[in-house]
């Protein structure tokens, strides 16, 4: 009995230490965002908080942060909508519409191989191609790139969710004279709504966080939030305060999703890996 209590205490202690290690860096950068430059540089632990960095990042004439935020929202939302539509259609097609098995396997393998390729190897070709089409520094270029990069994971997740829908539902609807696309819209989509939500959250976060494509396909007009943060860190003299404030603001959407859609996040991250 005593040994069991001791073991439980040790387990909790170990997990608590791990949780502190995970959380501390976030707390530290959040605190840094509220410190004056001097307070930062001398490493003060106790300090008088200031909103100067947030003011600079959000409202100074030299900062494009609000525009960057809008750009990120537009790009992440649009690429998420494209992935949801295209992936749901494709997943329904390969799971339910009687394609030969070798073709389904080939398609899924091709998508998985594409997913294994680093984006940087394609960015060069996208840069040259989109420039030739006059799409450099447009939303469309980044949206198409993000949608394609996330399509394999979207198809993979949607196929996993659609596979679990019982065939009886479709048979009943078929007797009622439901066509193929109607079947998808009226029967499958309502049933896999939690799966669609999980895919949406995951793809949105991927696009919101993506850096290397955005860095090379955008210029001032369409730059996203991660590109803006990297600028604060890369200038001749790193603007630590502004960098911290920009970083804190950038994770707000993810925090909101973590709070309201945690089940969807867990479902999206673990589906496919865990049977």
């Amino acid at each position, binding site marked *: 009995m005593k040994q069991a209590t001791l073991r439980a205490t040790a387990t909790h202690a170990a997990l608590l230490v791990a949780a502190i290690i995970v959380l501390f860096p976030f707390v530290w950068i959040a605190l840094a965002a509220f410190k004056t430059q001097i307070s930062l540089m001398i490493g003060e632990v106790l300090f008088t908080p200031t909103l100067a960095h947030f003011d600079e990042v959000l409202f100074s004439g030299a900062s494009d942060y609000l525009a960057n935020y809008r750009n990120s929202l537009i790009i992440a939302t649009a690429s998420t909508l494209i992935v949801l539509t295209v992936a749901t*259609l494709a997943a329904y097609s390969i799971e339910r519409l009687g394609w030969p098995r070798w073709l389904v396997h080939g398609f899924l393998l091709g998508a998985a191989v594409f997913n*294994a390729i680093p984006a940087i190897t394609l960015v060069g070709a996208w840069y040259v191609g989109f420039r030739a089409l006059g799409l450099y520094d447009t939303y469309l270029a980044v949206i198409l790139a993000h*949608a394609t990069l996330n399509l394999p994971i979207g198809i993979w997740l949607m196929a996993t969710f659609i596979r679990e829908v019982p065939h009886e539902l479709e048979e009943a609807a078929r007797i009622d004279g439901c066509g193929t696309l109607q079947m998808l819209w009226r029967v499958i989509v309502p049933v896999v709504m939690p799966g669609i939500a999980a895919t949406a959250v995951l793809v949105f976060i991927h696009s919101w966080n993506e850096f290397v494509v955005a860095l090379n396909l955008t210029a001032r007009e369409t730059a996203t939030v991660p590109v803006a943060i990297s600028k604060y860190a890369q200038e001749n003299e790193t603007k630590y305060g502004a960098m911290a404030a920009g*970083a804190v603001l950038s994770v707000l959407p993810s925090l909101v999703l973590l709070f309201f859609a945690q089940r969807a996040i867990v479902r999206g991250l673990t589906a496919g890996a865990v049977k």
Partner: protein
Amino acid sequence: MRTTVSARYLTLAPALVLFAGIAVVPIVELVAMSVSQIDWVQGKAQWRFVAFDQYLRVAGDALFRTGVANTLVFAIGGVLVQMLLGFALALLTTRITRGRALYRTVFILPILVPGIVIGAIWKLMYNFDFGVLNQLLGVVGVRPVDWLGNTSTALAAVIAVDVWHWTPFVFLLMLAGLESLPQDVYEAARVDGATFLQELRYVTLPLMLPTIVVTLVFRVIVGVKVFDEIYLLTGGGPGTSTEVVSYTIFRRFFTEGQTGYGAAMSVVVLFALALAFIVATAATQRRRTL
């Protein structure tokens, strides 16, 4: 059913169009660029055929070789530590009942944060003059360390960032896997008087193997792609000590403007990784059917 045939094509077509236009065509274009010397004259690309010259240069590029080596150390070394830590933490978590949901929430957080923000966080933490790590060392009387500016610590420092960033992801998948294991096997093992280690060796690990393999492959893939943290923290330096292959491609293609040469390097990396992935998939699938 007659409608199904056209619906079959209609439903798959958008995905095929997107893959063809944004993946296959650019890869073909990349191959064409890789055998060409491309100069930018007044914003326009001038192409000149040079056959395989640029591939030969890739083979002899010392920076590229260093990048490949560092990427392997980063991906394999980092992922092994993450797998061990993540599995151990998940195993601990299954032994508690209260607070499990709270720990899960805390551990999801790093997974959702942009790589650039992860870089920003650790740029602050590792700073030589006022970083919190050196402050803590100062408290116990140890001299400050230039974590990112020293060739002997820089690679280990960025691997540590990756471990911090991704161990929670491994934890999450391992916990989900452990929670889905059938409980009756454990009861049987306990009735037979199995010790904790025997239970781990003969029950947990074999049952968890599929989850472990999928997580491992997934993590190595993402590890090999590393770019953001390197871009923000070290830029491949000091010297070439944290140069990774994604960064070398970025450097050659965008920073130095060597369009054709960067394309050749991209083609080499792209096909090597595609091949490695296919081989790994074939190997793990064969093991599963055995």
